[in-house]
């Protein structure tokens, strides 16, 4: 398998939208 590691996730708001069975990436998410 490929693995998306945490370095590549930095600064994104990574939203695990379990109810809708999807994952979202929001840029500049830490501010």
């Amino acid at each position, binding site marked *: 398998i490929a693995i998306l590691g945490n*370095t*590549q996730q930095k600064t994104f*708001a990574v939203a695990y939208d379990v*109810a809708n069975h*999807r994952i*979202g990436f*929001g840029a500049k*998410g*830490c501010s």
Partner: protein
Amino acid sequence: ARTNDPNWHVFSVSSLLPSSACTASKAASNSSALGVVHRHGPCSPVQARRRGGGGAVTHAEILERDQARVDSIHRKVAGAGGAPSVVDPARASEQGVSLPAQRGISLGTGNYVVSVGLGTPAKQYAVIFDTGSDLSWVQCKPCADCYEQQDPLFDPSLSSTYAAVACGAPECQELDASGCSSDSRCRYEVQYGDQSQTDGNLVRDTLTLSASDKLPGFVFGCGDQNAGLFGQVDGLFGLGREKVSLPSQGAPSYGPGFTYCLPSSSSGMGYLSLGGAPPANAQFTAFADGATPSFYYIDLVGIKVGGRAIRIPATAFAAAGGTVIDSGTVITRLPPRAYAPLRAAFARSMAQYKKAPALSILDTCYDFTGHRTAQIPTVELAFAGGATVSLDFTGVLYVSKVSQACLAFAPNADDSS
């Protein structure tokens, strides 16, 4: 200079390394989000103690442990490490318990930590947060065999809301690794892929996320025999997909989801929040099917470098078994048939810079010594459904030092792994 070109990151070389001082501001006290800090950065309470008594972890060590975690994830997905194994009967007899063990993935570096409150009155504990495992645990009193940790051990006798989980309780039955002690307490054992291990009682107590956010009856492990690569953290909180995970237990109160943001620098602060609406600017991709119940699978389908799609065989990702998103793996691993063209395209764009030696698993490194500013191409990841995510600059380069900044991707061993 391509300052205004959206396909390039232009940066000051002097800004490559993180500050040695914590620059993060604490989350507002009325916020329900937990502050996320890098375990080895200056904001980490664990690191603050390390400075007094031990050396810092090197980048090479972080990357070597990262490979151990990746190897362990591969084994678990392949099923080799996923099947329950039986505890040594002699040891089980000695403890008066007989229970199967659950082998998880390697802890690796456990890069990011949050601070949570447990018990009544609540006491704070610094714990690793991990989307690749499910059971949360902290070290507890009395402890037969605990490693030295950041804070005093959790003491059940000081909490008015503590309760043991009985053997017959559904939470005990649902935990694969459950068993009974001679006094009918539910025992758990987790063996991680790197041989780290925690054993203890399954218990429940109030989890405090903030002054206004409490989760009564939170089920977690009260570890009394723990050993391995935990450093000095007080425990680990699992954010995986199974029922016992923090998001699953928090779902009735907050909804069945969570969001985190990992800071760009080890001297900065991010957050972890349960429930809530996803950010308005988010691009979404559907969860993909996957065999391992703890992991979150997604479909990575393509990569762009400097705004141009690189040529990756259409079957490269699917043939490799899909993609897992993991908060605990540092470096993204790609099938070789995807990594090779990424590396080639990146190297073509970096031809004007002097090459630097490889850093552990990172084989494409550059020396920016003597440059005031430098530029690297953007890297975008394309997911099923059309979501395209342009990585932050800090997600493209892994900077050990100014003379050794590396493309922050690595290949898996072969296309079938």
